[in-house]
């Protein structure tokens, strides 16, 4: 039996697609410090990015990225939890400075150094609370091979258009598993550019522009003074205490993300008519969920599937979808259900159940068992 006659199938891993997509989307530079299981991203970036710099640690990585971003470059890095923990203060800085960048976070088993070679979905709670003050750190997840291409592009687009760091969330198996994959169907990508200020008036680096996003100027420009700062500041980039001008700007950082979220809301909703049960899964567990849904439906069970790709901030459409169901099952490879708690709180909800575990992939049968219960 010949099932696939296509001539354009390659053997790929997700890392290769992510790097190629980010470069074609306009990323200029990869700065990185090696860490398992993000090493393939580092390796491919070394071969593919116009500029590649090896940093001496993860704090330096993010600081260099911010420095490059002030000059108009669009930087990327890839890391795992131990490295990301070191980056976090600087990610806060990038968010406050409104510098675009993508951090590919490849999840592995923690706590601490944990097991470097074991995948996980354990970092979402950290991302949800990672910006001091409850601000949103946009987080986009990869849930299948095509997403390595399309979601990497969307993450970069979101970073540049909203002038914010964006996390591209993956896990070990998603970036390291090799798979036969046909690249012929992938959409062509265009480089995404900073939105430069071209006015004659004095440039105000944090003046809200279209959709609350300030227009950009690099510190290399000769015509306007550019002030960039991580401390509370007004529209001119002058440090403030808790003045009205300072707070207006700080609150805008959140409004900017929330007001534009609909343009960057990505998900798959596989709805089955008459279904009263909804399965939610993201990232690596989406694969097991797709298989579970297929088998359940073959067995006559009615169940819908929601695969959120924009994980944070939570798009309101997910709540609208969830409200239509009597039973909701959320499958994640972590203890306690991190996305479940983000959606429903610690108090939970009688209609919501979790399928959770660590140190191994959640299996389709574990998911089917909970749905059929």
């Amino acid at each position, binding site marked *: *039996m*010949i*099932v*696939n*006659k*296509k*001539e354009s*199938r*390659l*053997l790929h891993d997700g890392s*290769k697609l992510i*790097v*190629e997509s980010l470069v074609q989307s306009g990323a200029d530079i990869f700065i990185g410090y090696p860490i398992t299981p993000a090493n393939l991203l580092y390796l*491919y970036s070394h*071969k*593919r*990015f*116009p*500029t590649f*710099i090896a940093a*001496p640690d993860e*704090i*330096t990585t993010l*600081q*260099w*990225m*911010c*420095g*490059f*971003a*002030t*000059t*108009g470059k669009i930087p990327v890095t890839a890391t795992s939890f131990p490295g990301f923990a070191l980056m976090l203060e600087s990610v806060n800085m990038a968010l406050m400075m409104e510098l675009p960048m993508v951090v590919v976070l490849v999840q592995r088993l923690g706590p601490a150094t944990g097991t*470097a*070679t074991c995948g996980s979905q354990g970092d979402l709670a950290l991302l949800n609370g990672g910006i001091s003050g409850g601000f949103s750190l946009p987080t986009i997840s990869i849930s299948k091979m095509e997403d390595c291409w399309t979601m990497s592009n969307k993450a970069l687009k979101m970073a540049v258009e909203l002038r914010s760091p964006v996390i591209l969330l993956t896990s070990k*198996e998603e970036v390291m*598993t*090799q*798979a*036969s994959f046909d690249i012929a169907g992938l959409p062509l990508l265009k480089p995404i550019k900073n939105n430069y200020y071209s006015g004659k008036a004095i440039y105000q680096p944090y003046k809200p522009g279209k959709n609350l996003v300030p227009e950009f100027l690099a*510190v*290399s420009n*000769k015509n306007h*003074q*550019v*002030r*960039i*700062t*991580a401390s509370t500041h007004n529209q001119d*980039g*002058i*440090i403030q205490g808790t003045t009205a001008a300072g707070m207006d700007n700080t609150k805008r950082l959140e409004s900017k993300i929330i007001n534009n979220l609909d343009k960057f809301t990505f998900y798959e909703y596989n709805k089955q008519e008459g279904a009263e049960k909804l399965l939610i899964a993201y990232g690596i567990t989406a*694969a*097991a969920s*797709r*298989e579970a849904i297929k088998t359940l439906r073959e067995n006559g069970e009615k169940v819908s599937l929601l695969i959120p790709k924009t994980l944070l901030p939570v798009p309101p459409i997910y709540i609208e979808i969830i409200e239509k169901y009597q039973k909701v099952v959320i499958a994640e490879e972590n203890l306690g259900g991190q996305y479940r708690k983000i959606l429903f709180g610690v108090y939970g909800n009688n209609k919501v159940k979790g399928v959770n575990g660590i140190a*191994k*992939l959640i*299996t*389709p049968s574990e998911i089917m068992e909970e749905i059929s219960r």
Partner: protein
Amino acid sequence: MNKFLTDTALPFCKGCGHSQVAQYTEKALQNLNYDPMDVVMVTDIGCHGIIDKSFTTHTVHGLHGRSVALGSGVSAGLNNPNKKVIVFIGDGGATIGMQHLIDAAHNGFNMTVLIHNNMLYGMTGGQPSEFTPFGFKTPTLPEGAKEAGYDICKLIAAAGASYVSRVMGIGDFSAQLTEAFSKKGFSLVEVMEICPSYGVKSNPGMKLSKLVEEAGLEIKVFADNKNSFYQTEIKENRKSLFSKEDAIPTKYENKLKKPLRFMLCGSAGEGTQVAAEFLLKAGMLSGLHATKKGSYPVTVGVGFSAAEIILSPDEILYTGSPNPDVVCVTSQDGLDYARNTIRNMSGGKLLIDSSLEIPETKAEVSAFPFREKVGIRNSSIYSIFYYLKNSELIPIDSLVDVFNESKISKKLDIAKMLDF
């Protein structure tokens, strides 16, 4: 007339040396005829960091202790020796960001760092830093420092800076700043100051010059030996990671009716991952969907090496293999790794090297001397040939094709792989 500073008063306490650093920076930049729009001032947290609003240049204000790393990124991003990146940092920030200083000097980033060393943390109440000299008292260290502070100039000169000097923050030191700003690559000037709010009060009657002398901190140029600098390499139009030559077109037919989950377990250095990739490619040549998950310890050159392979006529959604159909074991490491999986098999096949003990299992067992027949280095690849030959699910010719296109074919005779 000021060109780089605004005309408003500087924001520092009366008698603070930080004001002199700002004023002599103005003078030095004027000496060198810089345009304010060609200068980027990078500052961080500490009293010195509130200077931003007083400068007419571009300004970037970051996290405590990170301004040198941030400035390094700005400098490498500008990638233009005609632009001037100046980093202001305190002794507290230099303590936190010591590695950034060493690293920037080592790389030769085009920038000048001015350390405002007043020997304590002025913004948070006068705590000691690693630069606090022996015997110097601060509000939280009334007994005085028990150890000498860092000699940052010696450290940074040793790290490879183009220019390093230490100056007293009293009197006109604009000539030394002019010298530092004029250098290509990484330059650093440490300005010795005393904090009028905490340093003077905790050390009444102490003279800065005497203190510096007693601390053995020499006022001199420590390095002035090169003008080389970091240049950011930009390689446009690099080759795509996708290559048409890597495409694997369907050439053969297969007999697979349902997914085959195959687990290959061997030892590092015995070709397990390569063998698994061969099976994947053979499957693709035979029109199948294919996935492979590799498992091995972080020390990739020792211990087990395993791969979970799925070949399927249908799209593969879930790539895990909790219950493999076939487990193929070629070494003791591989057996140790797969023992539980083998024990839990309720059917399927176990291929195992004849030299190994056969574990308890409900799988159908075939033992074969893979290691003895072709040597340990080739045993994994050989086991794949053996499996395809006997299973006939996909044509062995597909594997022969993959083998012949690989580098291994130059070192290993295919006939050996087909001799059972």
